[in-house]
């Protein structure tokens, strides 16, 4: 009895701590939206009046919806086939594909944006130059500065995260239904459409909603592509409010804009929660479930490789080439034969000498973030999918809502928490606070990934265990955790990669003693040291890739999920 209580207490305790962390940013946003500029606590409704009363608000909101929707469409166009190819076919080189997906996560978005600005800008973009469409009087053929390109590039860079979110659901899906369909003469295409996609519906819907919120919050592409093209979207308004040229940042207006994102996200999440009430019908992984045999691609193998290769070229090849080029030139200049004479390894040498302490701090932050994301994510997912309580649903919905808080506002909320607690807990300005804030920001991804896998595990496994006298805590450890381990692995990869490159949180929270690699890159770039900044980025990509490959090897993971795990159903 004592063990049972302590097991449950631990799960709920972790879930409550996770909820408290998420509430810091959610309530921080609400409080900010009701405050006068940066004077948190001086209550006003003026921010909402300003936001909603702005005549540009409706068109801006429409563009924001297009930005989010367009990004999700592009992202699914690439990620759904890639996840399916990796999980359900005999495609070769899947390990390499997963490794390259991971590498993409380590590349900051602004690098991808910069690569495409070089290619497609109307003044001296290489595509226009090749077509002879540059020069004072020439009319460019390609012009990157538009909403369509923002959607396309954001969609392309979100592919790895989306694949990692839906891949566990592919792995845990019961294959017997597919095989039954094939045996009954149903075509592969109809099986995919009628069985596989409906079974994956909760995971797909979660991915669509989650990345819709992420897409309208990220700033890299809006800043570098949207701003010069006068593409006004919500994240740009938030940027303006939080980056004043004089006086204090207007966190009040940013908070109100964040509330608009809440409204958009909240509506989507309400639909999702309503949908999940029927989620049990997607639970097919019971005690007797097993995976389906891999589909032979046959003559389609080259088409599959071509598809994945196209994405790799767009998302990884060009940005890596850009990083490499910028690391080798002493100042930012586009590739040309004349520029080849300027190539130097100085950037790599200087980067190596600069990285010591920031790298140690970054690895520490990554480790804490990953650990917290996994502990909180697993606990929250169990409560949300297994407890069948209203609290579980609310908990899940609130955590799902958290990415809607603008990064800058979330950073300020954690900063204020650190200041408020500084007399009792020395968190203010420390890497611990940065790691907690990062884990909180990443928690929604962790829970989406684990939930997607957890919804496919039939509760009959738990019920059988409880009926046999197994405690809930033990069922959590012996049934739930092993079943969602692939999901936890991908959540860990995502948390590690994203915490390594996150800039806003450390930039805002660090008080001078917790410099990270991302802030080092920021400082180098601010100083015009583009070469060393790019070289640091490349070192980090190699290091992170090595870490992920080592983790895969040590943990016995493969592109099929867990190779060393027992066959499904054995635990039950």
């Amino acid at each position: 009895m004592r063990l049972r209580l302590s097991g449950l207490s631990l799960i709920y305790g972790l879930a409550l701590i996770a909820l408290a962390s998420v509430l810091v940013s959610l309530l921080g946003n609400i409080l900010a939206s009701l405050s006068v500029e940066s004077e948190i606590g001086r209550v006003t409704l003026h921010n909402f009046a300003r936001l909603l009363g702005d005549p540009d608000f409706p068109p801006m909101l429409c563009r924001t919806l297009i930005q989010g929707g367009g990004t999700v469409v592009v992202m699914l166009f690439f990620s759904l086939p890639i996840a399916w190819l990796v999980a359900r076919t005999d495609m070769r080189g899947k390990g390499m594909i997963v490794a390259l997906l991971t590498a993409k996560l380590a590349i900051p978005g602004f690098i991808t944006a910069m690569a495409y600005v070089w290619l497609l800008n109307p003044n001296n973009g290489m595509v226009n130059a090749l077509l002879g469409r540059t020069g004072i009087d020439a009319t460019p053929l390609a012009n990157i500065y538009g909403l369509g390109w923002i959607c396309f590039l954001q969609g392309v860079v979100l592919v790895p995260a989306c694949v990692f979110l839906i891949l566990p659901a592919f792995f845990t899906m019961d294959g017997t239904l597919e095989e039954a369909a094939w045996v009954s003469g149903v075509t592969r295409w109809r099986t995919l459409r009628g069985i596989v996609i409906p079974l994956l519906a909760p995971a797909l819907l979660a991915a669509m909603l989650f990345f819709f919120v992420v897409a309208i919050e990220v700033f890299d592409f809006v800043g570098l592509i949207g701003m010069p093209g006068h593409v006004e979207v919500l994240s740009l308004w938030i940027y303006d409010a939080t980056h004043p040229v004089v006086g204090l940042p207007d966190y009040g207006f940013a908070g109100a804009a964040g509330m608009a994102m809440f409204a958009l996200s909240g509506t989507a999440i309400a639909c999702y929660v309503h949908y999940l009430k029927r989620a049990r019908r997607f639970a097919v992984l019971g005690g007797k479930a097993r995976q389906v045999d891999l589909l032979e691609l046959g003559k389609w193998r080259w088409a599959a490789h071509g598809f994945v290769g196209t994405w790799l070229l767009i998302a990884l090849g060009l940005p890596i080439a850009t990083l490499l080029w910028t690391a080798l030139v002493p100042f930012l200049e586009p590739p040309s034969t004349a520029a080849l004479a300027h190539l130097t390894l100085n950037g790599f040498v200087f980067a190596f000498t600069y990285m010591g302490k920031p790298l140690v701090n970054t690895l520490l932050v990554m480790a804490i973030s990953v650990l917290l994301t996994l502990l909180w994510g697993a606990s929250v997912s169990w409560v949300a999918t297994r407890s069948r309580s209203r609290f579980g649903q609310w908990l899940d919905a609130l955590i799902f809502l958290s990415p809607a808080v603008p990064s800058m506002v979330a950073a300020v909320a954690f900063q204020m928490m650190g200041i408020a607690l500084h007399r009792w807990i020395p968190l203010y300005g420390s890497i611990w606070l940065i790691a907690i804030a990062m884990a909180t920001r990443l928690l929604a991804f962790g829970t989406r990934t684990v939930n997607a896998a957890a919804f496919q595990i039939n509760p009959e496994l738990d019920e059988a265990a409880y009926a046999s006298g197994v405690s809930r805590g033990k069922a959590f450890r012996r049934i739930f955790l092993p079943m969602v381990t692939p999901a936890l692995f991908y959540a860990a990869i995502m948390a590690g990669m994203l915490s390594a490159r996150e800039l806003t949180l450390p930039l805002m929270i660090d008080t001078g003693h917790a410099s990270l690699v991302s802030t080092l890159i920021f400082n180098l770039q601010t100083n015009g040291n583009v070469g060393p900044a790019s070289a640091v980025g490349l070192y980090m990509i190699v290091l992170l890739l090595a870490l992920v490959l080592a983790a895969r090897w040590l943990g016995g993971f493969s592109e099929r999920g867990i190779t060393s795990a027992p066959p499904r159903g054995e635990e039950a």
Partner: protein
Amino acid sequence: MGRFREECMSRARAIAAALLVLAVAGGGARAADLPPAVAALLPQAKAEGLTANIFGISLDPAQIAAFNKSISAFYGVPITLNMTGSLHPQKAAELVQGAKMGAESGLDIFWTASAIAGTLEKADLIAPFDWVSAFGLDPAFREGTKGLRLHDGTLAGVIYNTQLLKPDQAPKSYPSIVDNPKLKGRIAMPRAPNVFIFMAYAIGDAAAQNLVKQLMGPQQARILPTYPDVQNRVMSGEFAIGLGVDSTMARRRGAPVANAPIDPVVLTPWAAWLMKDAKHPATGKLFGYWASSPQGQRTLWDVDGIARVTTPDTDLAKLAEKKKVVLVPHDYMVETLPKLVPVYSRLMGLH
């Protein structure tokens, strides 16, 4: 590899030159030449651990090391400057809110322009220390009543790509930026209306507003997120003209950019402000005195390409030769700038 060796040598020469300056400064023997008020700070600074936390400019580790070597040689004792830089308005907001909640700033010196310092002054976070009177400095170094002017910012500066424009095609006045129709779509500027408000101080509000209207209208100028973005994209040749930036450090790396010879030369002073809750006030004051001295100014210029316009043998001084130099005053930055920001933001289409 030849170029690599050449750049290493160039860097080594720069450091050697800086060290030579330090040697000329006299190292430890220099302490005897210090004004009594400054020399009296050394024992206090030693009691503080000879460390100061300076927030202001973003420097890489090599630059910070060069600063530390220079100031240590100047005073003859090993001084460690913890230099950090990030987003100034956000840092100011953090300090103001933190002070209300009883948190210490953790800083000794805030090195920034008056526009930000004004916010800190209003929140009573700046120590009432008159640097000029205390150390007997040139009154021109006084910024407001509590600041010590360390360098003159170039936020109203204009750069051009030397591969796209010949020196005689470079703009020579602010209005001439919009006179050339061939520059249509070729001008980049940061999302910062203050650039034009600083210009307005020198050329008048109406002329500056007209400039923005022309840039946003017929000239189809592109707005970029940050100042480094503007500099980088002029370097890369995407844009011919960049507003709000300086070309010094980029030129040192060999980039094809130069400062446009705009007359008047409009500069925005940046000053050292001693924090009221400084834990190392003596070391912070030593930093200010050193950075303001000829030796400190030379280090600032050699290491980061910044200095006061009056510091001799700098590109900034050369740019200002035979031109009208306008320093945007403290009161204008604190009082007028905030009032004009909404006006110019609207003209730029910002929110």
